[in-house]
């Protein structure tokens, strides 16, 4: 399948329409389905990594089309983050699947990254100011002078390399935006910790461990998705420090990603160094970050994977979260009908699709921007052992008769069953 710019624009127009249905007064909301935990009770705004994709994606569209609508979206998202910034520099509700919470990693750094990237294009200094306040606070909370690196939680030793990569990326952009190279000392510490946890050899050579509780040994869990999120920060570090070792590390991650792609163009959730795998859930919307890594490295995005992503777009314009959430806990659970979390489109995964598709869009555009066609739909899903009907309209998600999420409201309605 060859993806035309018309096809990309149509998908983007529908995705943008869906994202607008997810807006509340204080930002983009909605439920969260994730590997670590789900959040289907709090459905209010999250000032987390969703703002990375939203700000970068709309910035790409603004650059490529000059349509003022995209500039308004950028300004609105910037205002969300500024309004939700606490006195100490943290963002409210920045823990994604653990919301309501704050000091979310890598979420706050990712949101600041979005601010910094969009500020370059719009010339809006207030984004840089908010990002600088935020990153300064992250450093004050997470920097460990004894081990000369960033912990994942204050005063709790340990490294999460993919989060360090995001923080490193934000620090690079901050140094470039402000001309203050003192930020680069922290950048170097963060990105060098990513290299320390790269698998040197074996079938998963090049992959980055998920976690190092003792800051010395990787935990043997290799998530393709989180590995992909290390690629662009390594490329940026290579440029900023003019050192090829970071680019070489990114190349090795790409080898791992190519090696682990499934025949249908998705990726397993986890490859364990022991040889075992957690095959499910496989991301659909989240796959966009993996494909974005291919794009950043100047490689062609695997066609089967891009096709798999684009054909999954829901009638509402959103992209479903994944396949096989039911197999998180039960390895033989049926995939049909899908789990309710598989089907539910989540803002903090769809932002990644926005960033990818906007990045793939050629410039200048030969075609007129399309009027989005979206509609409500229903689908049978499994929810806690029962087959129910999942419905999405522009106003709400309905899960059978007992559970519903009104998109404009911060808390869900119904009884968890």
């Amino acid at each position, binding site marked *: 399948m060859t993806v035309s710019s018309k096809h990309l624009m149509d998908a983007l127009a529908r995705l943008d329409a869906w994202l607008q249905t997810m807006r509340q007064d204080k930002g983009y909301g909605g439920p969260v389905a994730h590997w670590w935990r789900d959040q289907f009770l709090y459905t209010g705004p999250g000032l987390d990594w969703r703002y990375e994709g939203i700000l970068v994606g709309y910035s790409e569209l603004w650059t490529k089309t000059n349509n003022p609508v995209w500039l308004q979206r950028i300004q609105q998202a910037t205002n969300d983050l500024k309004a939700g910034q606490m006195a100490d520099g943290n963002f409210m509700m920045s823990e994604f699947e*653990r919301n*309501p*919470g704050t000091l979310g990693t890598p979420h706050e750094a990712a949101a600041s990254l979005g601010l910094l990237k969009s500020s370059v294009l719009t010339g809006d200094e207030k984004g840089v100011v908010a990002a600088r306040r935020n990153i300064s606070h992250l450093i004050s909370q997470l920097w460990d002078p004894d081990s000369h690196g960033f912990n994942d939680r204050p005063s709790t030793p340990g490294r999460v390399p993919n989060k360090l990569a995001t923080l490193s990326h934000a620090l690079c952009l901050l140094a470039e935006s402000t001309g203050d190279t003192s930020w680069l000392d922290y950048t170097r510490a963060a990105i060098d910790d990513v290299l320390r946890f790269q698998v040197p050899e074996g079938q998963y050579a090049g992959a980055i461990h998920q976690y190092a509780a003792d800051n010395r040994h990787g935990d043997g869990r290799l998530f393709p998705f989180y590995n992909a999120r290390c690629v662009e920060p390594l490329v940026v570090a290579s440029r900023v420090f003019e050192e090829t070792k970071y680019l070489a590390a990114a190349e090795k991650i790409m080898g791992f990603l190519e090696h682990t792609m499934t025949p249908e163009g998705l990726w397993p959730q986890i490859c364990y160094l022991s040889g075992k795998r957690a095959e499910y859930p496989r991301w659909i919307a989240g796959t966009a970050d993996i494909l974005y890594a291919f794009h950043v490295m100047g490689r062609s995005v695997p066609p089967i994977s891009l096709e798999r992503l684009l054909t999954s777009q829901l009638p509402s314009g959103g992209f479903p979260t994944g396949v096989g959430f039911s197999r998180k806990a039960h390895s033989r659970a049926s995939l049909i009908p899908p789990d309710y979390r598989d089907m539910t489109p989540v803002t903090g995964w769809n932002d990644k699709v926005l960033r990818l598709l906007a990045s793939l869009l050629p410039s200048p555009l030969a075609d007129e921007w399309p009027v989005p066609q979206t509609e409500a739909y229903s689908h049978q899903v499994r929810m806690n052992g029962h087959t129910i009907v999942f419905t999405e309209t522009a106003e709400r998600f309905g899960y059978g008769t007992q559970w519903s999420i009104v998109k404009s409201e911060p808390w869900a309605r119904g009884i968890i069953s």
Partner: protein
Amino acid sequence: MNVEVVTMPTTQARLVGPEELSWHYIMDLIFAQSYQLKCQLLNLVIPDSPALRTMVELRRYSVDSLTQGGSPKALAWCVPGTSQVSNGQSDSSDCDYIFSLSSEPFNVSKLLSQYSIWTYKARMWGLGIRLTDSWNIAMRDRFMNRANENFVRPGYHPAHYHLYLREKAEPLA
């Protein structure tokens, strides 16, 4: 929705791991149900803990500009082992709804909802997490997912916490 908070000194365990997760769920369930009931006022009585106060503040932020036109008042008594009737720190007589958090199951009339939090089933899977932690991380992840799946259940199940929502002040049986 207005949220008023009263803290009580207790020997509350430090909020880490499953204890912290329990309180996330307790607060989420109270706020979600209060919002659904269109409460104008939520009066929260909680153990005195900085982490808990932060949890409440963030959730207060989610509802502080929202008015749903309702007038009901709710009292959420979240100090297990103490009674709102005998304590006298918060008057429940003018409340339309009362949340009660207990370590023990009890019979309540006019019950609207009941949740069991940090169920013993989840604790059993948690034991598996600790046993496999250092030697089989793939199995540990599977146990983690089983524990998460069973962490909160509606209705009564053997659990560390039970959260009840009932109408109006009625003496506990």
